[in-house]
C-alpha cells in the first residue's frame, strides 16, 4: 500500500485519521464535466486521495476554456478534455486511478457512465444533461453534488432524495443553455466547495448542504443560504419515500414526506 504521508495534513484533522483516508482511497467518484467546475473538483479530489475518479466530457480543449479550466493548457488545445485532464491529474497523484469517458451524458448512456460510483459531482454546463444525471442519481439512490456558476456568482447544494429535494424540485424547468460569462476564480471557488461536500460525504463528517442551497456572489463578497424543500408532486423524485437504506451523513433539513 502506498504511503499515506502525503495526506498527513488532512489526516490530522480532528476525527479523520487513517480510517477517513482509507475510506477516500476505497471510493469511486464521477466528475461529470471537465470545465471550470470540473477542473476544481477533479483536482481537489485527486489531491485528497479519492481512489478512483471517473471523468466524463465530450469536448475538446478550446482557447476560450483557458481562463478557468486549469486541467488543460495551451499545448492541449484541440485535444480531448479527458486526455489533458488525465495527464494533469495523473501527474498530481499517481496513487489515484483516473477513468476517462469521452462522451456526452444522455438518457441512453447515463447508466453505463454513472454506475458503480459512490457519489456524482455535477459540473455540466447545461440543464439538459443535468436533468438526465439528476434523474438517474435519484433512481439509483446515489447522491449528487450540484454546482453552477455565472459570472462571479455560483451555487452549491447536496442532492439525495428522500432526504433532500432533487434538481427538478428546485428548478422544475430551465431555459436553453448557451455560453455564459465566467471568471475562473468563481468556478474554482464553487468547484472547490463541491469537492469539499464530496469528501465530507465519503468521510462521513460535517454537515452537508442537504436541503440548503449555498449562493456565493463574488461581486459583493456576500453569500446567502436558501432553504430548499421537496416537491411532493415532483415527477422525478416525488415517489421516492423515506425508509431507504442510504446512509445519512450530517444533518438533514429536508422535511418528511
Amino acid at each position, binding site marked *: 500500500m502506498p504511503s499515506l504521508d502525503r495526506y498527513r495534513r488532512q489526516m490530522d484533522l480532528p476525527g479523520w485519521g487513517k480510517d477517513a483516508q482509507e475510506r477516500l482511497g476505497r471510493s469511486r467518484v464521477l466528475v461529470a464535466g471537465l470545465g471550470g467546475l470540473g477542473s476544481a473538483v477533479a483536482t481537489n479530489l485527486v489531491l485528497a486521495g479519492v481512489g478512483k475518479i471517473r471523468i466524463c466530457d465530450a469536448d475538446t480543449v478550446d482557447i476560450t476554456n483557458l481562463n478557468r479550466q486549469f486541467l488543460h493548457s495551451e499545448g492541449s488545445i484541440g485535444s480531448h478534455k479527458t486526455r489533458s485532464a488525465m495527464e494533469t491529474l495523473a501527474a498530481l497523484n499517481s496513487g489515484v486511478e483516473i477513468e476517462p469517458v469521452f462522451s456526452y451524458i444522455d438518457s441512453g448512456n447515463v447508466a453505463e457512465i454513472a454506475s458503480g460510483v459512490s457519489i456524482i459531482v455535477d459540473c455540466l454546463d447545461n440543464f439538459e444533461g443535468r436533468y438526465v444525471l439528476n434523474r438517474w442519481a435519484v433512481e439509483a439512490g446515489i447522491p449528487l453534488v450540484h454546482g453552477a456558476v*455565472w459570472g462571479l456568482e455560483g451555487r452549491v447544494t447536496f442532492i439525495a432524495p428522500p432526504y433532500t429535494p432533487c434538481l427538478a424540485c428546485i428548478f422544475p424547468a430551465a431555459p436553453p443553455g448557451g455560453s455564459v460569462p465566467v471568471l475562473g476564480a468563481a468556478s474554482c471557488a464553487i468547484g472547490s466547495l463541491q469537492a469539499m461536500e464530496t469528501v465530507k460525504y465519503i468521510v462521513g463528517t460535517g454537515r452537508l448542504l442537504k436541503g440548503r442551497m449555498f449562493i456565493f456572489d463574488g461581486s459583493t463578497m456576500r453569500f446567502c443560504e436558501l432553504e430548499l424543500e421537496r416537491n411532493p408532486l415532483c415527477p422525478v423524485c416525488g415517489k421516492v419515500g423515506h425508509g431507504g437504506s442510504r446512509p445519512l451523513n450530517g444533518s438533514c433539513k429536508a422535511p418528511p414526506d
Partner: protein
Amino acid sequence: MPKVIIPSPLREYADDQFEINLDGDNLAETLETLVSMYPELKPAITGSMFLSVFINGKRIDSGMEGWNSVILNKGDEISLIIPIAGG
C-alpha cells in the same frame, strides 16, 4: 423597506445594481415597482416561468397569482432565483 437582491445575470437590466430597496407592502407591489423602474427585467420576473422567489431564505410557493397576499416587512430580503447552468 424590503430589499431585492438582483442575481448576476439580470444586473445589466437594472443599472448594474446588486440590490435595490423598494417600497411595497406585499410581494406583488414590490416586484411591480421593480419592473416599472427597470422594464427590461419584466421578461425574467413577471413574465417568466423559470423564476423562484425566496424571502429571507424561504421559498414563496404561492406562484405569481399569490404574490399580493405575501406581506413584506421592513428589512425583508427578496432573492430572485433563476436557473443558471454554467460549468
